[in-house]
């Protein structure tokens, strides 16, 4: 009886695959839009082949056996790629659970004795619980990687330094300012000042939802650092609510040039650089 489970699986390998595919295709949540049935079949077959090859009577009870490393590797690969493709956790989990179901059906049909059947089912169950954990873990890991990558991208994207004129840089800040973001913004701005040789930098905070004392401190730091580089920093885009908050919090911004809009900050920058913008032809009259 002891050799029965592995032998049974080996004998019924093709049938198991068929059943499994049936189970998967019967599921209402099948994502044909994300993966074709052909690919799914190839993927499933690879897993069954490697599982049945790895499975022996000795290691079936030892879920941590090194024999299953290859199976776990395949499972992890499938799980991570599904996480990236946007499968839901339920769909990913059902993939392995439907294999378990197929195996149980085979055991159910092949083993007549109720007691033996129960024991065999329990052993398979335990093994597959472990595989489910592997799937779950790597799925979460895959999703976390996606989140991390997006966070990095957001920090990169959200701090563009724009050269609006020769010698004038603008930096529109969108979203909440925290320490790490201020650091990135400061570095980007200072490097841009050196690269472009600009002497005025406009920090537009119209996209910053709230300004508390910490955010104000970060802004002050950026302004000081810009001054140390030998450029002037103007803060623009201060909304009425933000002006109220700043005063209520008792934050002193008197040492900084502040403007209501980016346009007025630009006019100020032109003045500093002794530039003038006027309508065509208007200089004749003056």
């Amino acid at each position, binding site marked *: 009886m002891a050799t029965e489970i592995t032998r049974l699986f080996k004998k019924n390998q093709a049938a198991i695959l068929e059943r499994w595919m049936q189970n998967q295709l019967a599921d209402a949540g099948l994502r044909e839009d994300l993966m074709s049935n052909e690919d799914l079949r190839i993927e499933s077959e690879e897993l069954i082949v490697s599982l049945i090859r790895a499975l022996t009577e000795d290691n079936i009870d030892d879920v941590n056996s090194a024999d299953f490393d290859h199976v776990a590797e395949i499972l992890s690969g499938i799980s991570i790629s599904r996480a990236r493709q946007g499968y839901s956790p339920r769909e990913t989990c059902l993939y392995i659970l439907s294999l378990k179901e197929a195996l149980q059906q085979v055991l159910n049909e092949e083993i007549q004795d109720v007691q033996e059947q129960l024991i065999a089912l329990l052993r398979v169950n335990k093994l597959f619980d472990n595989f489910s954990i592997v799937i779950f873990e790597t799925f979460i890991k895959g999703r976390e990687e996606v989140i991390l990558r997006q966070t990095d991208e957001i920090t990169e994207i959200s701090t563009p330094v724009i050269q609006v004129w020769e010698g004038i840089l603008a930096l529109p800040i969108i979203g909440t300012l925290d320490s790490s973001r201020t650091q990135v913004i400061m570095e980007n701005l200072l490097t841009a000042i050196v690269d472009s040789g600009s002497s005025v930098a406009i920090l537009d905070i119209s996209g910053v939802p709230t300004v508390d004392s910490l955010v104000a401190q970060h802004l002050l730091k950026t302004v*000081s650092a810009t*001054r140390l*580089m030998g450029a002037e920093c103007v803060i623009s885009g201060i909304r009425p609510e933000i002006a109220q908050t700043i005063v209520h919090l008792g934050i002193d911004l008197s040492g900084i040039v502040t403007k209501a809009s980016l346009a007025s900050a630009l006019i100020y920058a032109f003045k500093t650089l002794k530039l003038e913008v006027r309508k065509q032809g208007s200089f004749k009259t003056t």
Partner: protein
Amino acid sequence: MDRIPILRMGQFLLVTIQVDLYDRLALDLEADLVKMVSKTGAKGILIDISAVSIVDSFMGRIIGNIGVMSKLLDAETVVVGMQPAVAITLVELGLPLKGVYTALNVERGMDLLKSKIQVIDDEEIDPDDDDSDDITE
């Protein structure tokens, strides 16, 4: 013993720091500069720190001190060419160098110094003009 050379250029003194400042060197520079200002009657000091990549709070304070001291001796100080990392460090250390002017490079620093000297000269001339106006009235 190393010393940082101080070059005289008309009304201005030029200091280019090409090595990383250590404490002794910075203190010597401070003393030399102040002596030089009083000896030559210089109106402006230009310190180029574009080659300095590391600063600590002591260096920051020395640079700030030079600014305040030369102000007492009627000379303006301009620090030019600060690297982004140095600027960030100084701000994080809470040393915004209030006493000194800053410029992006030597050329701009020179222009700034010249304009500062000019402003001061104009202010000194202005009262005379006012007086003469008063007389004509």
